């Protein structure tokens, strides 16, 4: 029988080992050709940019992209042979497309910051516009009343659309009744309703009939129409992810269908359902047309959801962005910045909650 003896020298050697990542090592030939494939097209385009006056978009799309494709193709061919060419085409296009969307996003946010950041200040967030005229300097006034309005309207819209949306999703995934295809179709069709139509609809049946004023409530109704399909469809996807084992498990314990849904399925999908709600809110929060029609406008802070017309961030932007006063325009851009930050916060929240472990 052979025994393995312990050799102290080996241990010493082992302890001197450094952590490495051998799979990251690339042959020099590979590194060189990739470097060339990246640098040469960039240099050519940079030279053209400095020496000629071809517009930048054309430079990028018509010259840089094909050049880069060719260069990468050659590099791939040099290192991996013909089978590398298809790979390189896909990779270059994927990187190019992602870069393009990042650039679009960054320039949107960038222009908001450039034009709106000057407006931001504590009083911009907390004051309303009662004594403010378009020519008032940025030292006074704010969008506090619009923020209150947006939050109130979104809250009302959620109150209406979330229960209905979840109930719709439950009908589709849990009840699985005969009408499922029709309900699905209806929800899908609803998600195609233009927001201005939702606003007009509420204007005609709620405001014009005299049932309610232009108000947070009427605005909330219009928003609810737009939110509902998003909430319902996202909640449906999320409920579908709940494993059937849990449903069967609950039924095997002598549970009714209704109790199974309320106590097991929905709680198991809780984080996903919160995500559905937040996505619904993010869907509507920037919609302007429905609120112009259903909620109206106001310079004062309104908290009564039924009483009177109410301001909101999107309508505030709409009302100020085209005025011939630089400060009013800056305020509009500032509000847009606030709105996009609000949406970003909502999405982050959705991410964080969606990731959160299920406790209790």
């Amino acid at each position: 029988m052979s025994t393995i003896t312990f050799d102290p020298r080996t241990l010493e050697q082992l302890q001197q080992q450094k952590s490495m990542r051998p799979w990251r090592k690339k042959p020099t030939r590979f590194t060189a050709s990739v470097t060339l494939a990246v640098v040469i097209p960039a240099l050519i385009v940079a030279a053209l940019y400095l020496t000629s006056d071809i517009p930048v978009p054309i430079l990028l799309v018509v010259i840089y992209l094909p050049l880069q494709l060719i260069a990468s193709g050659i590099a791939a061919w040099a290192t991996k042979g013909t089978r590398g060419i298809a790979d390189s085409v896909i990779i270059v296009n994927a990187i190019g497309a992602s870069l393009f969307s990042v650039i679009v996003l960054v320039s949107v946010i960038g222009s908001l910051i450039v034009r709106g950041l000057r407006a931001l200040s504590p009083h911009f967030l907390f004051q309303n516009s009662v004594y403010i005229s378009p020519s008032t300097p940025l030292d006074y006034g704010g969008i506090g009343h619009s923020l209150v309005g947006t939050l109130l309207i979104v809250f009302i819209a959620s109150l209406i659309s979330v229960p209905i949306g979840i109930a719709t999703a439950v009908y589709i995934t849990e009840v699985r009744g005969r009408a499922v295809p029709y309900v699905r179709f209806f929800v899908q069709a609803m998600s195609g309703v233009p927001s201005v139509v939702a606003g007009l609809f509420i204007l005609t049946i709620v405001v014009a009939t005299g049932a309610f004023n232009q108000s947070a409530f009427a605005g909330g109704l219009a928003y609810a129409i737009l939110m509902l399909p998003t909430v319902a469809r996202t909640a449906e996807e999320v409920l579908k992810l709940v494993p059937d084992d849990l449903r069967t498990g609950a039924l095997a314990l002598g549970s009714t269908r209704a109790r199974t849904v309320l106590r097991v399925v929905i709680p198991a999908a809780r984080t996903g359902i919160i995500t559905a709600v937040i996505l619904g809110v993010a869907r509507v929060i920037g919609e302007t047309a429905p609120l112009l029609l259903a909620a109206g406008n106001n310079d004062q802070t309104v908290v009564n959801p039924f009483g009177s017309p109410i301001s909101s961030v999107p309508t505030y932007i709409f009302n100020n962005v085209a005025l011939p006063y630089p400060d009013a325009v800056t305020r509009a851009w500032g509000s847009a910045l606030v709105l996009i930050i609000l949406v970003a916060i909502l999405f982050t929240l959705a991410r964080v909650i969606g990731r959160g472990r299920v406790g209790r």
Partner: protein
Amino acid sequence: MSTAEFEDVMDLDIEGVEASTVHPVGPTEMEARDVSVWFGQRKVLEGVNIVFPKKTVTALIGPSGCGKSTFIRTLNRLHELIPGAALAGSVLYEGKDIYDAAVDPVSIRLQIGMVFQKPNPFPSMTIRGNVLSGLKLSGMKRDNHDDIVEETLTAAGLWNEVKDRLGNAAGDLSGGQQQRLVIARALAVQPHVLLMDEPCSALDPASTLKIEETIRELSKEVTIIIVTHNMQQAVRVSDYTAFFLAEEGTPGHVVEQGATTEIFGNPQEQRTLDYVNGRFG
């Protein structure tokens, strides 16, 4: 031959067969009579007759796809939840057909609990919440929840491992622990019968042994019907065994059944002998 004479002969014959296969000890808890099952047009089980005596363990063995899971799910009316499912014959529980129109499937499932192949604790609940979930879900009233939690977790062989963290999420437990938690959950509603569909197939050997101990212990109180692919397990835990088989394009049926010692020690059918000795399946 007169009718009476014919019956006499038949009776004798049937008794002769039964004597060698079924050992009717004590009162009967459940009985499947001529159970046949379809999924859509496809017949997957044919004419299953098994008697389950009270407070015994019956093992259902047989190759994959022969209809063991399907059969066990007919015993607590979970089968009917599958779209396209159909059934003929009857399942008696305490002498009454559970498929009678007047019977509420919910009350049947409350008395005939089930543990599945894959542990399925409710992820939104704590360990304690899972144990008590059956009470909430079925609306059953029982006092002293703390005692119930301790008793059932002890019976499932899990108490010592979790007693200090009853408030933790059930998902934090290992697979073997989750399966024992699910057993405790099933016990908390005090079922008379416990169905187990390959409860150990996803578990490590140590957890498997723990669950086997639990089964032996539980059989003093409840009737257990367990599907298993593990021959040693069938021998270790069961009093009776039924061997299912679905031959080439035919529906599954029971080839042989009887005391576990007989099925494994002295099977009457060549196919049973081959299967229990691992020659197919």
